[in-house]
């Protein structure tokens, strides 16, 4: 006895999985890109306590971190059209991921910025650097090194979060597996391929971040 894996099924649907993996990567890429931009912006306005913007960023971060992505996507996909704003599925998913990821990235950057000693800022000021020069030449390079592990973890987190985008009618890995199970009852094969698909995407990414993190640590900041 024993279960026979249906290799023909696996071979047949591998191209579909690869396609879905492509979509996941694409979503993740744009989601991460915009998350980083939003996160950096929020972290800087909060770090410099810029009035109004700082409170707005605070409200956004709380809202974004304390609501699930599914709800955010529902709102974008089904809620906004009622007031006349419509997105296509892909834009909707990227917007949702960026909205969610932005706050996580903001907190990672903030951790990095806050790790910079007061003395570094003061010594930058005393050679006449402006605030923006201070951020660019002194604070950010050091903050990035500190924030790198958290930023990497957020990228992995966002990639995994793409698994709910089927609710805005996108054929990602998760929805593909569900569809195949529904159509062919090949639950084991479909789920096996699903796990393999995520691992193929995520393992190299984690490895890359671990490597980068080590390099940054060896770069050995700190006087």
């Amino acid at each position, binding site marked *: 006895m024993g279960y026979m894996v249906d290799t023909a099924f696996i071979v047949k649907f591998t191209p579909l999985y690869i396609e879905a993996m492509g979509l996941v990567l694409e979503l993740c890429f744009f989601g991460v890109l915009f998350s980083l931009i939003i996160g950096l912006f929020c972290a800087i306005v909060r770090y410099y306590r810029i009035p109004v913007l700082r409170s707005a960023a605070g409200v956004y971060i709380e809202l974004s971190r304390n609501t699930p992505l599914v709800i955010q996507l529902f709102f974008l996909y089904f809620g906004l059209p009622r007031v006349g704003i419509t997105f296509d599925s892909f834009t909707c998913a990227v917007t949702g991921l960026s909205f969610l990821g932005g706050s996580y990235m903001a907190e990672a950057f903030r951790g990095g910025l806050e790790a910079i*000693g007061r*003395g*570094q800022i*003061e*010594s*930058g*000021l*005393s*050679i*006449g*650097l*402006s605030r923006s*020069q201070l951020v660019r*030449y*002194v604070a950010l*390079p*050091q903050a990035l*090194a500190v924030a790198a592990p958290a930023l990497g973890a957020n990228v992995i987190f966002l990639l995994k979060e793409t698994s709910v985008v089927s609710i805005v009618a996108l054929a990602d890995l998760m929805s593909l597996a569900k569809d195949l199970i529904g159509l062919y009852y090949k639950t084991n094969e479909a789920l096996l391929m699903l796990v393999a698909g995520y691992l193929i995407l995520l393992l190299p990414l984690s490895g890359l971040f671990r490597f980068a993190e080590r390099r940054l640590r060896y*770069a*050995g*900041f*700190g*006087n």
Partner: protein
Amino acid sequence: MTDTMILDRLNAVKPAEERGAPLLEISHLRKEYDGVPALRDISLRIDKQEVVVVLGPSGCGKSTLLRCMNGLERIQAGEILLDGGVLTTEKTDWRLIRQKIGMVFQSYELFPHMTVLENILLGPLKVQKRKRKEAETAARVLLERVGLYEKRTAFPRQLSGGQKQRAAIIRALVMEPEIMLFDEITAALDPEMVREVLDVMLELARSRMTMVIVTHEMQFAKAAADRIVFMDEGEVVEDSPPGDFFVKPKTERARRFLNIFQF
């Protein structure tokens, strides 16, 4: 500009006739932290080419005074003038002022992600918008003067404390400031490295750089100072030539302070 011209400019001993004109004037300065006074009513005048050493027990406000001089601390009352211009108005552009006031910190505060040379060139290139070639030459001349030219591509973590502090001095000097402020810059150093940093300051004093030095190095104060300012509890208690201060201090507080250093 040729190398020799830069060299001449950097090595130039300032003309003696400038001596005695006021450079930095502080009047009735008051500084509080959350209502607790740190500086009560400070009036002080620093002349061009003068070396003033500020002494006093910990917490007497000497570091705070230094930090007020380049705008790192907001003051509650009083006035600071540099070269006759008032610094303490709302409109003061500290970015411009700070280029004329060099400051060196106890904890070096070199930028750890930059080499020695990058640390030194950041101000001249990004703040003063000087030409790279000219700034590099100026940096080289200064680095050679303190024996650090070989270390120009090293990162701060690869330097000893004394080397870091000399690099930090050069980072301030390369801006060609009118006055240098030193905030206990040897306090974090191992004893054998204190000397190399003090020597750099002594040499600066001889080239008639205007300096305000906060330190606990009494021998150095005796050797380098034109004037000793003794502070206690946020006030200037004595302001006299080192010969007078160390030999016959006028106040009981200064006598008690000096006795701590006697064995």
